């Protein structure tokens, strides 16, 4: 009798506990950081989002949510007016006094890493999985991601056994205007290397280029990321505004590729492996394409 009562108590207790755990998960989220918001969505957290920052542009449905402004310049009261339970962001989020105010209002401020490396992504996803009650899915997502990057690496090793890495420049611009060249220690540089390109720029950070030095580098492939235009329009604008680019080997051979500039901010995002594959295909065209 005693045993059965305690067994019942135990079962009931577990049930209640389980129910309590599910309902204790935060239901109202504000997310700051492009890649982070994408992962929240990938883990099925989109219905919980009540606001995002201006760097959260993907998927497009996020743009319909209230915008909390730029992630480094958040406003405490603005965010509190959305009545969130969680503010998720990266170390780029700030300013610190505002975060302190938000914390003191009882909002969970959850920090993630924006570093472009797999270890950071792993802990980010684990952390997100727990907060969203999707730990298993998060693990699975990371597994797939890791594999996709590994496949990419293997492909590269195979290709590079026979072919040399092309010299590449990545240009970040706005509607074709004076672009900045992505140098060392940037997310763009990391991406180029992962895709098997050799970044010709030797400076650090994003810097405007001088026409002369660019002509001397003679890149075989140009990659551009335009914040305002996409596709053919962006390419046309780029060459119109910067005629020197049209004389590079890359332009002459039509090897001009495009990446989405939102891939370059906020750490590793879910769309990266696929984009790396596309870039890689552009860097190492199959022989039929290489000789038109």
């Amino acid at each position, binding site marked *: 009798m005693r045993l059965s009562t305690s067994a019942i108590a135990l079962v009931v207790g577990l049930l209640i506990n389980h129910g309590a755990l599910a309902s204790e998960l935060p239901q109202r989220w504000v997310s700051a950081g492009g890649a982070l918001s994408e992962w929240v969505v990938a883990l099925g957290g989109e219905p919980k989002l009540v*606001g995002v920052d*201006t760097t959260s542009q993907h998927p497009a449905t996020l743009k319909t949510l*209230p*915008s*909390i*402004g*730029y992630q*480094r*310049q*958040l*406003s*405490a*009261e*603005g*965010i*509190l*007016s*959305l009545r969130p339970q969680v503010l998720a962001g990266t170390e*780029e989020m700030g*300013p*610190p*006094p*505002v975060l*302190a*105010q938000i914390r*003191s*209002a009882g909002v969970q401020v959850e920090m993630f890493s924006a570093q472009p490396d797999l270890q950071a992504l792993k802990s980010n996803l684990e952390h997100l999985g727990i907060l969203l009650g999707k730990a298993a899915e998060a693990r699975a997502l990371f597994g797939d991601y890791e594999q996709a990057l590994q496949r990419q690496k293997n492909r590269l090793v195979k290709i590079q056994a026979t072919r040399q890495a092309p010299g590449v420049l990545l240009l970040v611009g706005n509607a074709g205007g004076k672009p900045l060249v992505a140098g060392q220690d*940037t997310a763009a540089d990391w991406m180029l290397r992962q895709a098997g390109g050799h970044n010709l720029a030797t400076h*650090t*950070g*994003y*810097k405007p280029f001088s026409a002369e030095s660019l002509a001397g580098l003679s890149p075989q492939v140009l990659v551009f990321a335009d914040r305002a235009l996409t596709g053919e329009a962006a390419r046309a604008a780029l060459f119109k505004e910067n005629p020197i680019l049209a004389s590079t080997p890359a332009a002459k051979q039509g090897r001009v590729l495009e990446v989405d500039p939102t891939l370059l901010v906020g750490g590793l995002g879910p769309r990266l492996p696929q984009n790396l594959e596309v870039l890689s295909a552009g860097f190492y065209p199959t022989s039929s394409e290489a000789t038109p």
Partner: protein
Amino acid sequence: MTTLVKPRTLFIGLTLLCGLATWLSLALGPVSLPLWDTLRAALRLMGLPIDAYGLEQAELILGQIRLPRTLLGLAVGGVLALSGVAMQGLFRNPLADPGLVGVSSGAALGAAVAIVGSAFLGGLPDVFGPYVLSLCAFAGGLGVTALVYRLGRRDGQTHVATMLLAGIALTALSGSAVGLFTYLADDATLRTLTFWNLGSLNGASYSRLWPLLLVTAGVALWLPRRAKALNALLLGESEASHLGVDVEGLKRELVFCTALGVGAAVAAAGMIGFVGLVVPHLVRLLAGPDHRVLLPASVLAGASLLLCADLVARLALAPAELPIGIVTAFIGAPFFLYLLLRGRA
């Protein structure tokens, strides 16, 4: 001398305006609080025994977010306008603004050094970071102003014209140094720098508020004592000294008060343009050039203008926020033009 309004009317009007702006700044925000709750929370913050039940949110928003922000706005607006009066009096030129003696550009340089430097060193601890920025901005402003003042002195006399030109030269120099830091900065640092240059009352906290409140109170109490001397200075330097004014001492005080006031304001809220230049004008258009009226009235007008601008800054795009530097000019400039043209007609 005919003025648009009598000093008495002006003071009553400005006090009411400032009170209204203060109340609106406390009562309005992206979080909509019931008016009754705001009132009760405000009374509770003043120490009245009111039941706290159901007031937690209102008290938090009011006490931790809106009150420090409002106090910051009052202090920054007041001290910037006051420094504007001091500079226009010193240079006897209505185009003078606190930036002329290099305090703004010096502060910008200090901030750039702090922002880019701390990014270069791999970031400072969170508790420490904001203070470094404020201290560097303050030190930069004070340092460059001291240099401008030094350069303006010759044979124990301060030549205002030399000081003006030295100010322009050093502003250009600091500008190019800031440009160099901008070039060296990475993308993220650049953004921080840009936003700092546009100013904001966002994230005001008591710990950073007290130094500014002290400086503002000091300057606001001290400068009006020099109102008569400033009036005499309007006639010219030699005339003023014949009237018994210690002109050299006055110049030193004016420069020092400006450097201290603007330095502290910029350190607390970033660069906020326009207030220092235009508020003294507004008051002068309304009440004439008598510094006995101009000085205290400018404090009230500057504080009110900044609070109104801040209201727009935080409500226009809520839940996001506009930098206040954009708003001050946006609402201030058309109003100023209106007064200017009306005065001409």
